[in-house]
């Protein structure tokens, strides 16, 4: 069983390569478990529990039972998922074809029907041109509906197929493929992609995390008219070598009622951002002006901030443990399963300051982020 162990605060964090799972554990349990998976005999382990930790035989048996269950779970996880496979998919004359431009790269994006375009394209309108010809581009992404499946391919290479119920996975994979094309890299060049939003000022970025609906995007948008710039929304790539947060030009999506509230407080929003209304989801997309002319930007991450908006409640920011941050972050992120990257990822997290920010008042949010930025928290 291949694994990596890191000490973070008072715990051990163990990543298991085969299962691609992370175990966060107190050190005494770790000491027994690690001996168990290394094949130390049960009698010797019982003695170790008694001598080192003064455990009763019943407690020691319970520890060994848990260790066995844990080992079984790690061995039996990661079942091979049957993926629908398609060979080469060729575009047809009535397909909708766009050219996406960013970071001085052009990508040809083809949708087989309007429904698929509506699912993916609204976030990229500001970097796209509709084209009629199929002029050769270095990269061509095809999104096509075949027998009820939505397929994604890059340069004639099949990437995956999803049902319409799994459309967020298609959207995520599409973003990843586009990110790789714009930066001329592949998946293993990234440490992780966080479900987060990031803003920046000068050379540093602040990453906002939290469940969908927690207010990450709104916080970013509000701060973007108060001295910060949006680096990336919803999909935060971290470079495996520099550990910097990369920009990605997808528009910020905000639910319409929230946007109205924001405009009342910050009328300049309407002037600095162009909007596109998606009639089905009742989202509005905020497009920072001039994205298409921008080169890719990379910023050092100053802090991870878990954000929570509520209509009433305290406005405060406080430090949280890195372990607590990891417990939220791991299940909500794609983390590279490459061994070297996992090691770098855990080192990166162990040095990053982590905070929880609760807010009900937008002005207070701006004040609190200002404090964080000036190292006053």
């Amino acid at each position, binding site marked *: 069983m291949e694994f990596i162990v890191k000490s973070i605060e008072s715990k051990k964090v163990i990543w298991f390569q085969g*299962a*691609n*799972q*992370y*175990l*966060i*554990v*107190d050190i*005494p*349990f770790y*000491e027994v*478990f690690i001996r168990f998976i290394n094949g130390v005999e049960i009698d010797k382990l019982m003695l170790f*529990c008694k001598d080192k*930790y003064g*455990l009763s035989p019943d*407690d020691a048996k*319970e*520890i060994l039972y*848990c260790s066995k*269950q*844990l080992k079984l*779970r*790690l061995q039996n*996880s990661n079942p091979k998922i049957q993926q629908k496979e398609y060979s080469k998919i060729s575009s047809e004359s009535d397909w909708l074809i766009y050219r996406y431009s960013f970071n001085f790269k052009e990508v040809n994006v083809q949708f087989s029907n309007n429904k698929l375009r509506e699912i993916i394209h609204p976030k990229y309108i500001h970097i796209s041109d509709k084209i009629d010809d199929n002029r050769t581009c270095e990269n061509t992404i095809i999104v096509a509906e075949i027998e009820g499946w939505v397929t994604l391919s890059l340069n004639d290479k099949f990437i995956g197929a999803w049902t319409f119920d799994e*459309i*967020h*996975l298609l*959207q*995520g*994979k599409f*973003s*990843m493929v586009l990110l790789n094309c714009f930066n001329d890299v592949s998946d293993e060049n990234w440490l*992780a*992609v966080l*479900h987060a939003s990031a803003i920046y000022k000068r050379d540093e970025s602040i990453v906002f995390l*939290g*469940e*969908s*609906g*927690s207010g990450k995007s709104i916080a970013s948008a509000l701060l973007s008219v108060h001295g910060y710039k949006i680096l990336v929304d*919803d*999909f935060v790539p971290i470079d495996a070598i520099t550990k910097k947060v990369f920009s990605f030009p997808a528009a910020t*999506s905000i*639910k319409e009622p929230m946007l109205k509230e924001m405009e009342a407080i910050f009328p300049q929003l309407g002037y600095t951002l162009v909007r596109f209304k998606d009639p089905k*989801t009742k989202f509005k997309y905020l497009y920072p002006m001039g994205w298409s002319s921008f080169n890719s930007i990379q910023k050092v991450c100053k802090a991870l901030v*878990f*954000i*929570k*908006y*509520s209509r009433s409640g305290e406005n405060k920011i406080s430090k949280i443990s890195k372990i*607590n941050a*990891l*417990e*939220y972050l*791991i*299940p*909500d*992120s*794609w*983390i590279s399963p490459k061994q070297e990257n996992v090691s770098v990822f855990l080192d990166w997290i162990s040095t990053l300051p982590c905070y929880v920010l609760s807010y009900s008042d937008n002005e207070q949010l701006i004040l609190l982020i200002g404090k964080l930025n000036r190292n006053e928290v």
Partner: protein
Amino acid sequence: MMRKNKKKELQRELSRRACMKKFAKYTAVTALGTFVLLSPKKAQASSPANPGGGF
């Protein structure tokens, strides 16, 4: 003051347990401490079309 701190501590612990319950593959409290087994996302994903509740 002590009571307030205890209450805060309890709230923090409860929210941590709620998180573990929601995300953890396998978690336990034993005589030698706790453990939690977590899986990262198998693929990159974007937000669901209809955002849910709070953090």
